[in-house]
């Protein structure tokens, strides 16, 4: 049997819905997939252990706890890329960082405990690298979700 199989993929979609705050929350999911509760938990554990899901649990919103997030971008000259990357990644406020094929080639998310922390950190990166840090805070969020063909 090739895994993840059809049931794993259906499970992956169900796991992206909000888990209820009940005593046996996985039992309801198991019933929807016609699995037993232990079989369902085995599959969830397998998906996590094999890295198909990076984490299962509450998604916390730093902004609602008084913190802030901001997507930032920089146009880093190729010759300086590694040196700039080292400086940017050294900051604990940098949560994710992706290289993208564009003039703006470094895109990272800042996560700070206070709204002021975003500007402070971005300004500090500008001073340290001599490069402009463009800031793209979210103004509106339309949807977060992901579905695999099941």
């Amino acid at each position, binding site marked *: 049997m090739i895994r993840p199989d059809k049931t794993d993929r259906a499970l992956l979609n169900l796991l992206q819905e909000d888990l209820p*705050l009940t*005593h046996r929350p996985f039992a309801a999911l198991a019933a929807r997939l016609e699995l037993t509760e232990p079989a369902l938990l085995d599959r969830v554990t397998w998906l996590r252990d094999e890295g198909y899901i990076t*984490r299962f649990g509450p998604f*916390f919103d730093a902004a609602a706890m008084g913190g802030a997030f901001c997507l930032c971008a920089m146009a880093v000259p190729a010759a300086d890329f590694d040196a700039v990357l080292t400086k940017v990644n050294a900051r604990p406020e940098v949560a994710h960082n992706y290289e*993208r094929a564009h003039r*703006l080639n470094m895109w990272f998310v800042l996560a700070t405990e206070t709204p002021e922390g975003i500007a402070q950190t971005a300004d500090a990166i500008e001073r340290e690298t001599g490069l402009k840090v463009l800031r793209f805070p979210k103004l509106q969020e339309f*949807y977060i979700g992901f579905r695999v063909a099941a």
Partner: protein
Amino acid sequence: MSIDSTDRVLIEALQGGLPLVPAPYAEVADRLGLTEAEVTDRLAAMKSTGVIRRIAAAPNHYRLGMTANGMTVWDVADARIAELGAQVGALPFVTHCYERPRALPNWPFNLFAMVHGETREEVEAKRAQIRDLLGDARRGDDILYSTRILKKTGLRLRKRG
């Protein structure tokens, strides 16, 4: 909204994820010396205030074979962004969709929609669907493929006194 020190302990305990056992909230309660009802009541309160968005899985797109990742960006009239953003965000293949500020003159784009696929061709086909949906409200667009993950960490909550 406000979280107290017990909420903070609960958040720290759950940052790594929920235990994958039949009664996960009871298990967390045991570890923290709380009752299951205290844990679920606190989690419910944090959901209602938005501290917790949902309790769910974070899929690993790369592991699932979705190795092509394109950040599509669009210049849409501000007056229509709420309506069109909601429609783009509702497309099943769009994983994140946000309105963000433009950075003129070089960055006229205000709608960001993340699209994953197994190949760039698949991503381009999805991008074309977004383009069709936006129709003449689209004044310009671009796509930025990720070429390397440079850093990826979860939310880190610093301990406060």
